[in-house]
């Protein structure tokens, strides 16, 4: 039996904002609706799993003033004067399997989210906390692999290839891009596949819109089938500029 995971760290990315440094608690519950399904002949109160019901909340210490402060990220998501849009929310636990949360090849859970409750307040003398509750705005809960860990890159970069499997006709590829910072230029994410770990005959399966500003985010979905290729990787292509700080997660999901 493996040791339990000590929640010493958890990367929390909301759109193009990294909330990790402000947070000290995380809650992600994945449930299915209990649809009653008892029939004549059943001696039990029977149910059938319905739609996913995803509960995602994070909390920590409140601050404001820059892109690394939670209030700057969260307030626009609650502000009624701002049009509602879907932002990916990604959680990266530690020891999954590498010890460091957010490491290349580690696990990540992602949803395309909207934020529904933002709570501030404390007793006199306490450090002011915050809590934000998110729900799925579109799609579902995705259990993903980090294929480009958060980092600053200065040139066209190929992420590590991962053997995620082939893409069936009822499956789709989901790629989540978080862009935290850009110093000039235009940057394009592509997802490539191949039937070998060396990517000798790589095929581009998805191309994101070029990104020139940050914070930013995109979610790509590509329906199957992709029959023979079971290796996948992210490639970030640079055109001009100096650097980009980004992360990419990838998974194969049911359509």
């Amino acid at each position, binding site marked *: 039996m*493996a040791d*339990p*995971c000590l929640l*010493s760290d958890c990367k929390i990315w909301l759109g193009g904002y990294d909330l990790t440094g402000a947070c000290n608690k995380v809650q992600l519950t*994945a449930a299915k609706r209990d649809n009653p399904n008892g029939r004549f002949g059943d001696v039990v109160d029977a*149910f059938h799993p319905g739609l996913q019901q995803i509960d995602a909340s994070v909390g920590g210490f409140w601050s404001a003033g820059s892109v690394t402060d939670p209030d700057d990220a969260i307030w626009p998501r609650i502000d009624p004067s701002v049009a509602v849009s879907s932002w990916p929310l990604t959680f990266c*636990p530690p020891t999954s*399997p590498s010890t460091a949360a957010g490491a290349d090849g580690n696990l990540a859970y992602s949803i395309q989210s909207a934020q529904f409750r933002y709570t501030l307040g404390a007793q006199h003398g306490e450090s002011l906390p915050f809590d934000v509750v998110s729900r799925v705005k579109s799609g579902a809960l995705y259990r993903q692999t980090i294929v480009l860990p958060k980092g600053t890159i200065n040139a066209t970069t190929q992420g590590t290839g991962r053997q995620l499997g082939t893409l069936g006709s009822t499956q789709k590829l989901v790629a989540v891009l978080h862009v935290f910072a850009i110093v000039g230029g235009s940057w394009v994410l592509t997802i490539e596949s191949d039937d070998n770990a060396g990517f000798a005959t790589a095929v581009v399966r998805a191309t994101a819109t070029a990104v020139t500003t940050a914070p930013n985010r995109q979610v790509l979905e590509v329906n199957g089938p992709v029959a023979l290729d079971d290796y996948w990787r992210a490639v970030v292509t640079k055109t001009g500029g100096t650097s980009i700080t980004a992360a990419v997660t990838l998974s194969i999901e049911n359509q």
Partner: protein
Amino acid sequence: MADPVVFKNAFTAWSSSTGSAAATQIPGVKSVEMPLTKAELANSVMGDGAETFHPGLIGAQIAVMTRQEFTTGGMDSQAWTRWNSETKFRLKFRAVNSAVSSSNPSYIFSRVGLFSMTPMSGQHGALLENSLQFRLLSGCTVTRSTST
């Protein structure tokens, strides 16, 4: 009067499908809650001095708390497969992880689904736990066996 059973090494297992009798132990179990209930159907009639009930359908909202870990094929992986793919499987419980007997019977649920899990839930510095909630599916039978 028999001594109580110290709940320190229970047998808590699930199968890979309803057609498989082979039960593998759920890894890293910390607690099990298995309330077996019957619906309380109001049944009072003229002449009853008390509020009376007739037993209805069996209910069993089974909850298992486990360690959470993300090793390949480990707890999170096994739970995710059952939750995401809506796999139908069997559950089997015994108070003690030893041979089934009249003093150590098995409770067997023949057709259940994993309706809820908590991949990540905790405060900084906590050990992660995965809270699994099971529901009985149509066609499920609940059996107490002293031989299986």
